[in-house]
C-alpha cells in the first residue's frame, strides 16, 4: 500500500518515523524500519476524504510502539479537526482496539478464517478456567459475528473486506457535522411495491422474512446489513431512499417470532445511536410479539437492556419513520420507535395489531378461561390498527404498496427537521 500509483491518491504521513526503543538490540540499524509498524495517511474514496491507518504485520508483528501510537494519534487528531472519518485496519499481535473515534473506527472489520480477537488467548484460558478452546472458537470471525457481537461483519479476506468497506463508506456522512449523504438514484421515489399488499401472511402466527420488505422498499433492493449473524431476531443496516442514506431497524418474524431479547435490544440500541450520531434518518419496521419471557432473560437484565433500545429511540432527534406491519404488542410496541418516543411519522398496515398482548393471552387473563367467545371479541376490538389510529398513535393506515412513496415524501419533508433535547453533559443511557 505504500506504492504510489499514478491513479491512487494516497498521501502518506510519517514515512520517516522510526521507533525509539534501544533495548535488546532494537537500536541496531537492521531493526529500524522507516515508518515503523503502521502506515498512516489520507486519501479519497469516491472523491470523499478519509484518513487511514493500517498496522503492518511484517514489521515486528504490527506491534504497538510509542512511534506507532504517535502516528495513529496524529491522523486521528487531524481527522477530528477537519471532520473526516478514520479507517483503521488492525493487524497486530498486541494492539489495543482504538475506540470512540470519529466514525468508522467503531465498526471494526475482521476477516473470516484468518483473524482472531481476544483479551486473553487460549493458553491463559486453559490455565485459569480449565476450558479447552481453539483460537478460532475463542475469538474467530464466526464467534465475534454470531456469538459475542463484537464484530459487525466478517468477510472472506482482506480485499473483500476493503471492497465492502468502500461500499459501506458511501452510506455515511464524513462526520457528525454533515447530513446523511444523498447519492444519485435511478430508482423512482414514487415506485409502488404491489407485492407488499400480500406479503404479510393472513395467519398471524406464520412467519415471513422482514428482509423481503426491506429489499423491496429500498433503492435498487440494496441493503447493507450490519451484524447479520448476531441476534437475528432484529435486522439493522443501511439502505437508501431516493438516494438518501437511511438506517433501517426491523423485527425479524422469521427468527424467534421477532421478539425482543437482551441481545437484539442491545444490537438495535447501538445501531439507533449510531444513526442518530451521524444524522441518518431511522426507518423502523415493527412486527414484535413482545419481550422474550423466561428466567434467563430476566436474570440477564432484560429490563435494563430493553431500556437501552427504548432510550436510544427516545433520545434520537433524526427523522424517525415507523411502519407497523403486523404485531405491535405491549411494551415492545412502545420501544420500537413508537409515537410516544417522538416518532415523526408512524404508519400501520391494514394487517397491524396494536394491543397490549395477543388475543389468546389477553382473554386468558381477563376471563380465566370462562369466556369462550371473548377471544373473537378481543380480536375484533384490538387485532387491527383502528384503535391506535383513533387515538393518534399511528398517523395513518396505509396501503402497503405505497410504503416506499410515503417514506420518500416524509424524508423530503423531514430533511429540515430540528429538534433539541434539554442541555446535559451527556445523556444517561441505562448501561
Amino acid at each position, binding site marked *: 500500500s505504500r506504492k504510489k*500509483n499514478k491513479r491512487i491518491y494516497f498521501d502518506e504521513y510519517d514515512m520517516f518515523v522510526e521507533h525509539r526503543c534501544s533495548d535488546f538490540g532494537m537500536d541496531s540499524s537492521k531493526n529500524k524500519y522507516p515508518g515503523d509498524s503502521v502506515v498512516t495517511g489520507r486519501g479519497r474514496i469516491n472523491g*470523499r476524504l478519509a484518513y487511514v491507518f493500517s498496522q503492518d504485520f511484517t514489521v515486528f508483528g504490527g506491534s504497538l510502539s510509542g512511534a506507532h501510537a504517535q502516528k495513529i494519534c496524529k491522523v486521528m487528531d487531524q481527522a477530528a479537526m477537519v471532520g473526516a472519518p478514520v479507517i483503521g485496519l488492525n493487524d497486530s499481535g498486541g494492539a489495543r482496539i482504538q475506540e470512540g473515534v470519529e466514525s468508522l473506527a467503531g465498526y471494526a472489520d475482521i476477516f473470516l478464517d484468518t483473524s482472531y480477537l481476544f483479551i486473553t488467548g487460549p493458553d491463559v484460558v486453559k490455565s485459569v478456567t480449565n476450558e479447552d478452546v481453539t483460537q478460532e472458537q475463542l475469538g474467530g470471525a464466526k464467534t465475534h459475528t454470531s456469538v459475542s457481537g463484537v464484530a459487525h461483519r466478517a468477510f472472506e479476506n482482506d480485499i*473483500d473486506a476493503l471492497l465492502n468497506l468502500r461500499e459501506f463508506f458511501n452510506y455515511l456522512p464524513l462526520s457528525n457535522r454533515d447530513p446523511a449523504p444523498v447519492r444519485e438514484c435511478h430508482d423512482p421515489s414514487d415506485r409502488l411495491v404491489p407485492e407488499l399488499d400480500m406479503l404479510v401472511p*393472513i395467519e398471524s402466527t406464520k412467519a415471513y422474512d422482514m428482509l423481503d420488505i426491506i429489499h423491496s422498499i429500498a433503492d435498487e433492493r440494496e441493503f447493507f446489513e450490519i451484524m447479520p449473524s448476531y441476534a437475528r431476531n432484529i435486522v439493522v443496516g443501511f439502505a437508501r431512499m431516493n438516494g438518501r442514506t437511511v438506517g433501517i431497524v426491523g423485527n425479524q418474524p422469521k427468527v424467534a417470532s421477532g421478539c425482543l431479547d437482551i441481545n437484539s435490544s442491545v444490537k438495535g440500541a447501538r445501531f439507533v445511536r449510531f444513526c442518530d450520531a451521524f444524522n441518518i434518518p431511522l426507518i423502523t419496521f415493527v412486527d414484535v410479539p413482545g419481550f422474550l419471557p423466561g428466567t434467563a432473560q430476566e436474570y440477564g437484565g432484560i429490563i435494563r437492556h430493553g431500556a437501552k433500545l427504548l432510550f436510544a429511540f427516545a433520545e434520537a432527534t433524526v427523522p424517525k419513520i415507523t411502519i407497523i406491519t403486523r404485531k405491535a404488542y405491549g411494551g415492545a410496541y412502545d420501544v420500537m420507535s413508537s409515537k410516544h418516543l417522538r416518532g415523526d411519522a408512524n404508519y400501520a398496515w391494514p394487517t397491524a395489531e396494536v394491543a397490549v398482548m395477543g388475543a389468546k393471552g389477553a382473554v386468558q387473563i381477563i376471563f380465566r378461561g370462562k369466556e369462550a367467545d371473548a377471544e373473537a371479541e378481543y380480536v375484533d376490538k384490538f387485532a387491527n390498527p383502528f384503535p391506535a389510529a383513533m387515538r393518534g398513535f399511528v398517523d395513518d393506515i396505509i396501503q402497503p404498496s405505497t410504503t416506499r412513496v410515503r417514506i420518500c415524501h416524509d424524508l423530503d419533508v423531514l430533511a429540515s427537521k430540528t429538534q433539541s433535547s434539554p442541555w446535559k453533559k451527556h445523556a444517561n443511557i441505562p448501561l
Partner: protein
Amino acid sequence: MESSGSQCVKQDCPFQWQSVFTTKVQYQSKNLCFVHLSRFLLFFSLQTFEKLLIANRGEIACRVIKTCKKMGIKTVAIHSDVDANAVHVKMADEAVCVGPAPTSKSYLNMDAIMEVIKKTRAQAVHPGYGFLSENKEFARRLASEGVTFIGPDTHAIQAMGDKIESKLLAKNAKVNTIPGFDGVVKDADEAVRIAREIGYPVMIKASAGGGGKGMRIAWDDEETREGFRFSSQEAASSFGDDRLLIEKFIDNPRHIEIQVLADKHGNALWLNERECSIQRRNQKVVEEAPSTFLDPETRRAMGEQAVALAKAVKYSSAGTVEFLVDSSKNFYFLEMNTRLQVEHPVTECITGLDLVQEMIRVAKGYPLRHKQADIPINGWAVECRVYAEDPYKSFGLPSIGKLSQYQEPLHVPSVRVDSGIQQGSDISIYYDPMISKLITYGSNRAEALKRMEEALDNYVIRGVAHNISLLREVIIHPRFVQGDISTKFLPEVYPDGFKGHKLTDLERRELLATAASLYVAEQLRSQRFLGTPRIPIAKSKQSSWELSVRLGDGIYPVAVSKDGSSFSVEVDGMKLNVTSEWNLASPLLSVTIDGTQRTIQRLSRNASGDTSIQFLGTVYKLQILTKVAAELSKYMPEKAAEDTSSILRSPMPGAVVAVSVKPGDMVSEGQEICVIEAMKMQNSMIAAKTGKVKAVHCKAGDTVGEGDLLVELE
C-alpha cells in the same frame, strides 16, 4: 387476412383480446373491424349463464375468468387457504376457500366444491385442466344438481378415459391406431408373418413386461426372428406368460394433436393441429401451431379422423385428439383429452377463436357458429411453458420461492402471457410449478420465433429458478428452427444434460464488455452525490479503467475507457463500443454492443465484485475486480473446498417423505438415504460413498430448502 393488412404498422394476432389482455393487439383492416363488430353484437344477443364457478387455480382459472368477463358472466373462484391472495381469487367476482393447501383437500375436494356451488348459486362449472376436469364422478354430481359442466358429458369422459375402450372406439371410427398383435406366437415364422402384416419396423416384447422393458426393435425378417427368440424366452422365464406384443415401432415420433370442437347437435369441427414434440419427462415444454411437418392432405386426414372419433362418442365441447406421427407422416391415434388443453392458446392465435367462449356456448346448448371452411390458419403461434424449475437438473427440477420481481414482456409486440401469478406470489410445493405460458404470434414461423426470443429476453423473473435459458436455447437451435424435432429432441440434443447457452468467442467478448461497462457505470455513479458536504468531493478525472473479469474458469483482462456517453472496451485484443442508458435500477437493460442490440438483465451485484448477468437467456456469474485488486488476490489464502462426498444436501426444495438411515448406520455407495418429494415427484437421495452415518439433519415430514444439509457421513 395478411394481405389486407398492408396499411397497418404492426401485423398482429387477429385474436380478439384487446379488452381483456394487455397485449398491444392492433387490427389490420377496416373490413376486419366490421367482422368484429358483428361478433361483438352476437355476444349480447346470446344469453349463456349468469354465474359460473371455476374449479381450478392459477393461469387457467384466470384465463377462464377473462372470457367470462367478456361475456358478462359473473365468476366464482375457489381456492385453498394458501391461495387466498392468488390472482384468480382477486379477479373473480366471488371467491370461496375450499380447504387447506394439499389438492386432495381443496381443489379435488368435491364435497366442498359442491357446497360452494350451492351457496353461490353458480349455474355452471368450468373445470380448466387437471384437477377435476376429466373426472366423470364430478360431472355426474354436477348433472344431478342441475349444474352445467363446461365440457363433454360423462359418457365421453368415461369412454376416452379408458385406454382400451378408447382404442377400440377409435378403431371402429376408422381412426388409425398403432397396428399390433398381442397374444401367443407359435414360432419365428409366425412372428415374421405378423411383422410383415404390420409393416417394418416393429417392436417386440413380452406382453407382461411393463414399459419399454425388454423391448426389441426389428427392421427386417432376420431381426424379427432374433427378437422373437429373445422375447419368448424372456416371456417364459421372467414372467411365466408366453404372450408377446408385436407392434408397429414409431420411429422418431412427433407428438401432434388436433383440436376439435363439437356441439350437442352432432356438429364437429377440427381447428388444426398443434405440434407438441418438445417434451421432457413426457411433459410438453414448447408447442406451436401449425406444425412444420404436416402438409394440407395429412392435416385434413388427421382432422377428419379426429372429428369422426368425436362424433362416434357424441362428443360436445372442446377436446384434443393426440396422435403420434412417424417420419413418413403416418399417424396413429394415441388418446383423446376431454378437456381444454394447456396449449390451447396457439390454436386460438391462428384461428381467431376463443375456445373457452365456444365451450361455454356449446355447454349452454348453442350450435357451433362456424363451418369447417371458416377455420383459417392465420400466421404462426409458438408457446413456451415458463416453469419455476432448474433446467440444469434433468431438464427441470422444481424450484420454489417468492417471485421477488416479476415483469411480463408485454411491451414486445404480439405477445400473449397467460399467467396466474404476480410479483410477490409464492411458488409453493403444493402445486404445478408453471409460472406462465408465453405465446408469441407472427405472420410466419420465423417472425413468431424472433418475437419469442425477444419476449424471453424481456421476461423478468426473480426469486425462483426458471427455465428461460432452456426455452431460449430450444427455439434458436438449428434443428428446431428447421422443424427437425421429435419427442426425443431434448435428450438427443443435450445427451449430457442441459448446460446453458454456449458462448461463442464474440458473445463472450460482448458479455465481458457489457459486464465491465456496467461495473464502470456503477463506479461512476458511486461518485455522484447531491448536495454539498463541508469537505468538497474531489471530482474524479479518471476516464479509463483496467479490470480483471472472472467468467467460468477464465480470467480476462478488460480495459474500459469512457467515450462520451458510451464505453470503449478492449477485451481479448478486440475493441467494442458499448452504449446504454445505464439505468442501474431497471431490471432490464438495453445495451448496444458494436451496433448489436441486446436486452440483458443484471440479477445481482455486490461490493465483492460478484455480478450475475442474464445474457442470451442464460445466467452467467462473473467477478469483476480492478486489476490492482485482482493482482493482490493472489496473496489471499485459498478457502478449503467442502468435501461434498460425505454430505448430502437437498437438490431442491420439497418435503422429506422418508429417511432410511440413522446415525451410526453403515451405508454403501448408491444406497438410498432418504426420499424428497417436490411437486409431483419423489426423488431418492443416495449416498455418494460408503461410510458411517455421522448425523441426520432431517426427519420424515420436514420441509427442506434447496441446499439444506440432510445427512452427514463420517
